[in-house]
């Protein structure tokens, strides 16, 4: 019974990661937009929803005690707007500028979370975030299962919506732009607008995932949104194979299993005073794993990105032809 509860708990976390990875897959896998600050967008969602839904707190702004669904919607709106602004600032430039800017977004969000006590509660974070099935908390199994059900439904909806989007004309335009960055920049405003849209929708999905996580644990703090989160999600996407939504979900579950498993293993194998060092080693190992995957299997397990090398030009022409509306 305990195992079932843990299984549900594990899957819930993994599916929330999947949601972030799906958002990243829309940005990177489908559109080729590089986001190394996704932890920032997840944090924006978590804090927004927490502010909107927590009961009034004299020590900080809000909370407004609104329904949870309003919190989630608010998270998506704010996350989407933040991503759209980031995109508008950088998408007329080369992709590296977007990478650097998103990196900066994560740094600044972390800074705000830590220091703007009136807004975010500072280093202690925000507690008493309403949980959808809080009343079931006495029976952990039921509680975990109902959380899993909610997260599964949300992830499934996001998955189906993204599958539909990537097959729609909109998705095909994004893929075409992904294949040729120069063209995407030179095509001007209309192309840029497509890419900003994709980046904003991706940001909104990440923010929603952040909100789900916040309501699932009931407590958030700046520590939850360190660069390591960004890194984990990237590994999930690369392992699963960028470009494939199914790959994003499976990659997330797989990597989270490895992560949680190796975490459990180190906590068993190492004495308490060595735990921090063991955790560092765990991160280093995953970093090496990411590099090795990029080297030997850049398409991941389910990826669809064509390999480009000498074949670059020809491959581009071929894809451009195959997706041009007939």
């Amino acid at each position: 019974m305990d195992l079932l509860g843990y299984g549900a708990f594990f899957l819930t976390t993994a599916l929330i990661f999947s949601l972030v990875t799906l958002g990243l897959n829309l940005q990177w896998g489908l559109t080729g937009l590089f986001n190394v600050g996704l932890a920032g967008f997840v944090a924006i969602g978590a804090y927004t929803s927490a502010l909107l839904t927590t009961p009034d707190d004299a020590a900080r702004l809000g909370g407004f005690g609104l329904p949870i669904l309003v919190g989630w919607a608010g998270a998506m709106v704010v996350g989407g707007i933040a991503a759209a602004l980031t995109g508008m600032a950088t998408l007329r430039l080369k992709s590296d500028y977007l990478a650097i800017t998103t990196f900066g977004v994560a740094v600044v969000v972390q800074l705000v979370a830590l220091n703007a006590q009136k807004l975010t509660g500072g280093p202690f974070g925000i507690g008493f975030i309403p949980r959808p099935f809080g009343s079931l908390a006495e029976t952990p199994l039921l509680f975990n299962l109902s959380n899993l059900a909610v997260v599964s439904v949300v992830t499934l909806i996001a998955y189906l919506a993204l599958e539909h989007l990537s097959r729609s004309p909109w998705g095909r335009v994004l893929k075409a732009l992904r294949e040729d960055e120069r063209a995407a920049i030179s095509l001007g405003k209309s192309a840029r607008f497509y890419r900003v849209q994709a980046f904003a929708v991706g940001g909104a999905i990440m923010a929603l995932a952040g909100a789900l996580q916040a309501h699932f644990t009931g407590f958030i703090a700046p520590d939850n949104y360190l660069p390591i989160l960004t890194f984990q999600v990237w590994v999930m996407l690369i392992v699963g194979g960028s470009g494939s939504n199914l790959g994003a979900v499976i990659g997330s579950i797989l990597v989270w299993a490895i992560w949680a498993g190796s975490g459990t293993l180190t906590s068993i194998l190492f004495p308490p005073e060595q735990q921090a060092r063991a955790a560092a080693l765990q991160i280093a190992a995953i970093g090496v794993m990411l590099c090795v995957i990029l080297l030997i299997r850049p398409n991941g397990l389910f990826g669809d990105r064509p390999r480009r090398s000498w074949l670059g030009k020809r491959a581009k022409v071929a894809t451009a032809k195959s997706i041009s509306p007939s």
Partner: protein
Amino acid sequence: MSLQFVVDGLLTGSMIGLGAIGVTLTYSILRFSNFAHGDFMAWGTYATLAVVSAIGATVGKVAPIAPLSFGWPLIVALVIGMAFTALLALLLDKVLFSRLRSQGQAIIVVMASFGASMALRSLLEFTFTSRPTYFSRAIQIAMPVGFGIRITPDQIALLLLTAVLVLGVHLLMTRTQTGRSMQALSQNAALARIVGIDVASVVRVTWVIGGALACVAGVMIGILVQIRPFMGFDMLLPMFAAAILGGIGSIPGAVLGGLIIGLAEAGAVQLIGAEWRAAVSFILLMAVLFVRPIGLFGVRER
């Protein structure tokens, strides 16, 4: 407002600027933003620290060179640390970046540098733990130099060192065949090969310069602030902002960008508070991207 922020800003700016030279060279010659550059800094610093300890263990305690806080062991160790960091950069290029470069997708290389950055930093944390450490625990007396500004001998020495290094790199880039080859490669890689430039050797020089300067910047942070595994990662955003502010590919631009960001940070620390320091780079970065994305000395890409 005290003018002390000028000294603080110039010092921070020197560290950022020396790091940004490597970032801007990597970007203009190898065409990717290297997220592992900050970790070169940290590795160089820890390597230097290790050599200092080794020297201390073999020859015993060495008196500092008055009035500085450090003696010849640190200087020797710095040179060894620079060589080590350069080798580390070359090694990482050989096993990772160069292979991905040959596959032709620049952004994958950025991704890999992000992964490498995580691995490098975590290895430092594993080996040395995340507890801060120092080159010297001696406290230096800051000398008043007028206008309410105080400065320590270490700070003067490091500012001079920065000036010498920047001038050296600038002369190398503009007055030597190696430097001209680097410029040529950054402007037109195909033509560079046609005129007989060996791309592989220019790439090696780029990593050596970038790595060595990153080590110096890291050691400066180590002397003036503290040594931590995250020291380089925290410098990443200021370094990128400085490189973009100065104009990608421009050495004087990177240094000037670093100084501007350093001064702005120091000013912000005085006016708003130290906790918001890291936001300064981001605000300046966004301002540049909106107003003049090619930076101060940049040239529009063709």
